[in-house]
């Protein structure tokens, strides 16, 4: 297990270096000139050169990339702002350290993810198991077709519709807004309820379909039939045999989804004007804020890679037949 984790972590580091390098290279292929934007319209050539030098844009991109990479381990200082290791750079647009902006935005994305994950796991797996239990009956047909319709919905359609139905025309729920849970737990809950509902609605549908199909698959396995034949009760067969078999698939998919979601749900955050990582990504891109964009991308990629490793390790725990090589 330890060898597996070490090996995979090293592989993950290589991937992260490549991802950040590609982001750097991509950014230098964009015709935007951040120094000019920063300098403003009335910008003398001397000023521009000075700003370029301050921002480090007078160097070639591999050199800049190297500076960025070494700052993570050794720290750096920007415009007199000290940035101790691990230092992820300085946003000249926001005049703040990238690390602190990310730390500032992450709780919003984390809250959005946790809340909706709880809802979609609970309802998705629950409905999927019920549907598999009543396979072919009315309940199964309703659940299956409903989840099919809902999974064809998109956040950018369902989100605005939910805003109209729940907030604008009826005042049933509060407008989406993020308050830290430490400040106001009730406000945190009510402010995120609508985004949670919308985000989890579509994911619930996906998890319902997935749970149902893997449960149905497991229930037709020989060992389930054997368990039934030897007189085991329906519930035990269902929960202890079939569910354990189906859990592997669900844990795998959930782990991967979690990594993606934690990296920032761009469309959801944009729709509900929540200031999480996803919204930060699109804004840093629009403002040509390279250091911030690289920061968000690397965080998002790290989460994806990290959860992939976790999933593989968890899979071995759930399914003893699998050996980590």
């Amino acid at each position: 297990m330890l060898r597996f984790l070490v090996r995979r972590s090293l592989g993950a580091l290589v991937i992260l270096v490549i991802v950040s390098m590609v982001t750097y290279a991509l950014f230098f292929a964009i015709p935007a000139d951040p120094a000019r934007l920063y300098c403003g319209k009335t910008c003398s050539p001397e000023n521009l050169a000075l700003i370029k030098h301050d921002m480090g844009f007078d160097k070639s991109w591999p050199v800049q990339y190297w500076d960025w990479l070494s700052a993570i381990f050794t720290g750096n200082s920007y415009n007199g702002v000290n940035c101790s290791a691990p230092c992820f750079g300085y946003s000249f647009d926001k005049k703040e350290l990238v690390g602190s902006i990310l730390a500032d935005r992450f709780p919003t994305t984390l809250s959005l993810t946790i809340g909706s994950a709880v809802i979609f796991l609970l309802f998705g797996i629950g409905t999927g198991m019920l549907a598999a239990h009543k396979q072919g009956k009315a309940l199964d047909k309703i659940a299956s077709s409903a989840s099919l319709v809902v999974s064809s919905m998109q956040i950018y359609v369902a989100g605005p519709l939910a805003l109209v139905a729940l907030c604008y025309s009826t005042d049933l729920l509060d407008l989406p807004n993020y308050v830290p849970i430490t400040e106001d737990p009730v406000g945190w809950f009510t402010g995120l309820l609508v985004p949670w509902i919308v985000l989890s609605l579509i994911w619930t549908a996906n998890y319902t379909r997935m749970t149902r199909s893997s449960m149905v698959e497991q229930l037709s396995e020989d060992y389930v039939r054997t368990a039934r034949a030897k007189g085991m009760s329906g519930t035990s067969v269902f929960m202890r045999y079939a569910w354990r078999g189906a859990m592997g698939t669900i844990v795998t998919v959930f782990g991967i989804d979690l990594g993606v979601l934690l990296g920032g749900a761009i469309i959801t955050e944009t729709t509900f004007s929540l200031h999480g990582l996803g919204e930060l990504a699109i804004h840093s891109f629009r403002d040509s804020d390279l250091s911030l964009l690289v920061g968000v991308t690397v965080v998002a990629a790290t989460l994806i890679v990290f959860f992939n490793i976790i999933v593989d390790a968890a899979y071995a725990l759930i399914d003893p037949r699998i050996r980590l090589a």
Partner: protein
Amino acid sequence: MTTPTGATTDGDTSRPGSTSDLADNASADAPADPGFRGLSPGKLMWRRFLRDRTGVVSACVVLFFVLVAILAPVISMIYGKDPQTHYGQNDPTLLTDSGLPVAPNGGMSGDFWFGLEPGLGRDVMMQLVYGIRTSLIIAVATSLLTTVIGVALGIAAGYLGGKADFFIGRVIDVLMSFPSQIFLIATMPVVTSLLVTPGEKIPEWLPFVAVTIVLSLLGWMGLARILRGTALALREREFIEAAKVTGAGPMRIIFKEILPNLWTPILVQATLALPAFVTAEAGLSYLGVGVSEPVPDWGRMIAGAADYLRTDVTFLLFPGIAMVIFVLAFNLLGDSVRDAFDPKANR
């Protein structure tokens, strides 16, 4: 072993989007008696598909959307409006001073069936009709491009093995770790700037090509992985060995022996990928980085409707509902195609 040629031709003709072929096949199939005549796998698949009511209905819906997209200029002529004219601004009685349609429900009337776009006062129905064109052109082009890349790299990795397999595998690993949404957004201007020099007038085809390239960059890995696995398994089969012994070169083996056996997963994956590209394309323009004005686009219509949610939800309903129906029909069709090809697959 099944006859590869039969699978190839029939697999090709039943691809969604080729409208005439659907009709051709139906009429050719009808008089065939259900006796003991041998049927090609393609024919068997087609029969299974025709028996699947959901599949046929969703195929009709998809066909309807495709027809609307193809016949958009004809519809525009009969209906008497085009997607670009600012009707609301030309006729002051249609829009209020704040830019909202005077008539209720988004300005729906006998003249403007689906209402008027607030602000510019363009016809919503024509925007919607031409919007299908935008999303279908991009989604079909992206599906074709990702299929070609996925097939080429998947077979190369699976059949050649060794270094090629290792290299392609690592590329897939890296691309899979990219936060895809962020990368779609970040690559858009790069691709655009590669295609035109700055300051040059942006040609009309550019947004289509740029979005297609960007979506394709991160869209081929799933298919490549599946095909790699299948090709890997096929490589060890006797008929490949037989071909090798008779002196067939690698190109012949790939194109004549392996590829015909991969049509089923390729076609199924392409049908399922298409709706995903439709929503991805709309998502990009929803975020304001996809196809830009004046090309009509559903994602941008939905984004525009967000400004008027408090006053009138109609602007959201038309593109929103159209999009859900379109994607749902495509998803159902994809499921049915898979069932028809692989009836044993337990879902």
